[in-house]
């Protein structure tokens, strides 16, 4: 509600102080606008007129809760929940109060009650907050994968985090971000629309592109954007799965992700996990691939709220079964940064370094095809040269445009090799058009 409307409501209530519906409206509007103290007053006033109104009572409790008057809020809720048929919403409020009071276990129970009564009340954010609290012991923020080392200390551990970066921290890549919004962020923000169309939330996105172009960064930012947990599974964990207690560990990872949902589960270099059958002639068995597909399909347990992102430099080595609907049905090409993106990357990397009038755009123009990692390498070379000069002259010198231009001569774009391979695949092995984006980027007409 706009502020003006709120002022208008305040005036209206002043004019007719006995209009209960109007007062109710005002109270909830104040609550929405986070003016909790005023909301508390209005609720109290309204309750004087209608002491039995459950909605008003819950509103007052919420106002108390937001002002951290937990005790008073819980007194109200206890009365409501003692009723024969408390409204499901009441359990949600109770869960939030209990959570705020640090009683995560009971909060979980209250939340579960609410969901059982009315599944529409599912609040992914609250749920993850509760489960986060439930796992406050340090051990629990990790998934222990057994079976590799001799002792427990040698076991590999996957940690999860709640990333602070968001899409604003990712330069360029508008198209990729839009795809992710459509597939991941909108479903979480407007679950009702998806529910109405009977579309499941979740599923996977496969990011592919040359190395060093920000696939991992993007996955992390996605998790940050939806304020969900983030679990990254890297090549080392995947390799261990091939050798150790593979299926069990994979299952454990997915289980953990379901437990802390909403969660973005990110598989880096996923081609190591889902290599094409013909490429893996020597390795016996495909159980790991099958297990992965099962987990993706969510046959045994629902994957609601678990979003699987995967990245690979070699999508052509991936088993075609991965691309089937419901698995990684959206495949997104992450190209090297464009000119504006490169300028932004340079600026970010040089932010806290001594620089003098660096012409970022000029350097960006001269670095077509450079990946983010390449640009970092260029800066590194420039800094090394500058440090040497500074030491010779005895005074610290700032980095200038020329230093970076000189460094350019010493570093070649690492994406070139990737593109020559990708081009071959796009030209000769592109039956379903999955690599058309690469051809478009390379400006190759077929």
């Amino acid at each position, binding site marked *: 509600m706009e502020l003006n409307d709120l002022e208008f409501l305040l005036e209206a209530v002043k004019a007719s102080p006995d209009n209960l519906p109007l007062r109710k409206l005002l109270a909830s509007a104040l609550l929405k606008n986070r003016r909790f103290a005023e909301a508390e007053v209005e609720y109290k006033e309204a309750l004087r007129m209608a002491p039995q109104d459950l909605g008003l009572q819950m509103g007052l409790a919420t106002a108390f809760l937001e002002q951290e008057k937990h005790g008073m809020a819980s007194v109200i809720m206890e009365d409501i929940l003692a009723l024969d048929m408390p409204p499901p919403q009441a359990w949600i409020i109770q869960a939030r109060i209990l959570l705020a009071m640090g009683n995560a276990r009971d909060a979980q129970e209250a939340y579960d009650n609410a969901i059982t009564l009315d599944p529409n009340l599912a609040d992914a954010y609250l749920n993850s907050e509760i489960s986060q609290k439930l796992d406050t012991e340090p051990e629990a923020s990790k998934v222990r994968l057994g079976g*590799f080392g001799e002792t427990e200390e040698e076991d590999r551990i996957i940690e999860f985090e709640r990333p602070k970066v968001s899409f604003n921290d990712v330069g360029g890549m508008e198209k990729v971000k839009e795809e992710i919004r459509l597939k991941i962020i909108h479903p979480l923000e407007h679950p009702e629309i998806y529910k109405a169309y009977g579309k499941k939330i979740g599923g996977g996105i496969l990011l592919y592109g040359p190395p060093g172009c920000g696939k991992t960064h993007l996955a992390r930012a996605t998790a940050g954007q939806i304020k969900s947990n983030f679990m990254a599974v890297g*090549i080392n964990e995947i*390799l*261990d799965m*091939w*050798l150790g207690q593979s299926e069990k560990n994979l299952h454990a990872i997915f289980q953990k992700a379901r437990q802390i949902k909403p969660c973005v589960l990110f598989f880096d270099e996923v*081609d*190591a996990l889902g*290599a094409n059958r*013909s*490429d*893996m*002639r*020597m*390795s016996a068995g495909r159980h790991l691939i099958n297990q992965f597909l099962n987990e993706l399909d969510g046959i045994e347990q629902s994957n609601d709220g678990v979003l699987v992102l995967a990245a690979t430099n070699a999508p*052509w*080595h991936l088993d075609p079964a991965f691309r089937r609907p419901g698995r990684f049905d959206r495949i997104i090409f992450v190209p090297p940064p464009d000119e504006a993106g490169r300028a932004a990357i340079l600026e970010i990397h040089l932010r806290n370094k001594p620089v003098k009038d660096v012409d970022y755009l000029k350097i960006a123009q001269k670095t077509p095809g450079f990946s983010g990692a390449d640009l970092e390498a260029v800066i590194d070379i420039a800094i090394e040269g500058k440090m040497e000069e500074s030491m010779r002259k005895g005074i610290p010198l700032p980095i200038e445009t020329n230093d970076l231009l000189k460094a350019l001569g010493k570093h070649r774009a690492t994406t070139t090799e990737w593109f020559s*391979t990708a*081009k*071959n*695949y796009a*030209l*000769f*092995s592109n*039956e379903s058009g999955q690599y058309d984006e690469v051809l478009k980027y390379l400006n*190759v007409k*077929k």
Partner: protein
Amino acid sequence: MSQHLDRAQLLMEQRRLPEAEKELAQALQENPESGSVFRLLALCKIMGQNYPAALAPAQKALALDPDDPSNHYILAVVYFYNNQSEQAKSLIRSGLNLNPYMPNMFELAGEIAMHEDRWEEALLNAEKGLEIDPEDTELVNLRARALLKLNRTAEAEATMNYALYTDPHNSMSHANQGWVAVNQNNFEQAIASFKEALRLNPQNNHARAGLKEAIKAKNPLYRGILNYFLWMGKMQSGKQWWFIIGLYFLYRIVISLNKNYPALSFLFVPLIVLYVLFAFSTWIGQPVSNFFLRFHPLGKHALSSDENRAANWVGAQLLALLCIAILYWIAPEAGWLGWSKDRLFFALLVVGTMLIPVSGSFMAPVGSNARKQLAWYAIILAVFGFIPVLFPAAFVLLGVYGLGIFAYAFVANYILHRAARRF
């Protein structure tokens, strides 16, 4: 087996070589005297095509475990790729003494024989290997390639059909089937096979080269050149030299006959023209046809960037040639602005003959010494050719140019031959 070794093998299967090498280094720390770790390290270097670097670990592997025939095998492979075939052969012998039932040993022996133009021996080795493992796709492919060289095309075709029957998803087999079809001048079938090979593995250079040839060969003019190359390719290198030199002497004889019996020139002149055209086309046939391939919708993608560059050079030269020819044609008898008709004619001659050294330089592998030597040869020739055209006073230099072009065919053939043997 150590955990690092397992991981390294897995990484090698996935062709993540730098990571695999790191794991192997760690495995060596645990067990510095393990022959199998050194063997894998050598294999890693071979897969990364860093052949000189593979030498040390392969030798170390054999020194640590001299009774393991696989160590003999790996060192033999490394020697072969380092152009030391004799050592490779002796290791194959010692390896087979330890275990006479190693199909990959026979395959390596066959590959070496193929490389040294001994087709019969290659075929023999392929068949010995197939006796042990009749379904080894690589051996079947080797057998077909040897049969093709021996002109036993029908047998080669049957062999490839068998290979594809046992393993229909093998890119190499489809490529070799395509080459069989090329030899049978069945180019539509060849193109289909090469396309399938490339679909299965877009990085298959054998198939890509075949696709190029098959598309170009649809043009009857090029088909002649291709068949000549295929025919030459089936000859052993010594015989090839005799053929080239013999043909050249025949040409000299025809020229002197023509001088002595002018009455018979109607017979000799076409022969001379034919020989010159033939010699010319063996040099410029590839890049010129590649230049035209650049306009083919699929063919243009089959060309490598180096071939594109060669085609561009040759295309530019052809264009210049055309322009000068038109100028020559329309120029008045007295010429233009000091450019007499004679001078235009010499320009035409130099640009036309320069096609040979320019194309020839691109025949050598990219970055090789041969490429550098031939490129310098071409540059020096160009200097000697164009100075007299631009400054008629230096007319004598044109003689040097003529000699240089004449010698080029022999010098370049020698350099290219030597380079083709190296990896």
